[in-house]
């Protein structure tokens, strides 16, 4: 098989496989036993049907209260209690807890990522991308004639 044809076929197969997985994951990941974070967010869309269930989820703190804090998930707001964690509004949290009723979660464990730390994460990650680009373009170049990436000096 000519290399150009091989490249086209590989691209189509790989992209097709990726697309199928992205659709499939979106369709089934929220089912019980699959992706716990997505399952928790799906459950919290209909809290009355999932009272008593244990959840693991990532979410963002909406407000803090004297007894805990409030998060938004599944289109609803939930008061979180049972934890010593004191996150601020805008902080990201990971939480393992139990859905006590239609609007209350009793937390077993809360891990807080403060908002400034998240901003640091995104900023330094952009730095990582820039470092990668700089290191890459020092040794490789894009050859338009063959539509391939080649080592510099490789004519």
């Amino acid at each position, binding site marked *: 098989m000519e290399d150009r044809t091989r490249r086209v076929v590989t691209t189509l197969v790989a*992209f097709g496989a*990726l697309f199928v997985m*992205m659709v499939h994951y979106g369709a089934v990941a929220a089912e019980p036993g699959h992706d716990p974070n997505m399952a928790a967010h799906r459950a919290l869309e209909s809290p009355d049907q999932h009272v008593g269930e244990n959840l693991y989820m990532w979410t963002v703190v909406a407000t803090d209260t004297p007894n805990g804090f409030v998060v938004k998930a599944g289109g609803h707001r939930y008061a979180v209690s049972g934890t010593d964690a004191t996150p601020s509004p805008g902080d990201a949290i990971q939480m393992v807890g139990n859905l006590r009723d239609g609007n209350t979660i009793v937390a077993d464990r809360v891990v807080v990522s403060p908002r400034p730390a998240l901003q640091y994460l995104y900023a330094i990650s952009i730095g990582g991308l820039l470092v*990668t680009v700089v290191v890459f373009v020092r040794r490789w170049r894009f050859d338009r004639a063959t539509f391939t990436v080649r080592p510099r000096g490789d004519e």
Partner: protein
Amino acid sequence: MTDLLTHVLFVYTGMTVASWRYPRLRLFVPISMIGAVIPDLSKARIIIPAGVIETALGLPFSWTAIHRLGGTLAVLALVATFFPKRLRSRVFGALLFGASTAYLLDAGLIRANGVTPPYLYPIAWMPLPTAGLYLSSESWPALVSGSVAAAVWTINRVYVED
């Protein structure tokens, strides 16, 4: 996710040190760094939310599949097709090494439930244990990886490449 700077510096360090023994690896150091970035392409959801694509396509959709075994391998294969045939298998190997280190570092994250997301999808939904060493938002992993990478870069520049 561990921050991307830690990801790429970790693999830069490993590949550069390996190139001292196997000089042919030197060309593929940046390729492995790209491999380390690929799983976190799932963060594209920050720019284009999955809901936007679901509405446009009329299908369920999740960027998260990129940060899973099957999605990552598909993206690696896509990237490798852009390289000449004579280099393609080595490029794929370098990309795979980079992506593997990314998953390794992500397994060191602190998770409230003590396990990773289902990284083995589509083979299995089974989570894997995490080491619980750091949060992705902590700065010390980047400081450590940056310090080590700087030392390796200096040694490479002064003693190896010259």
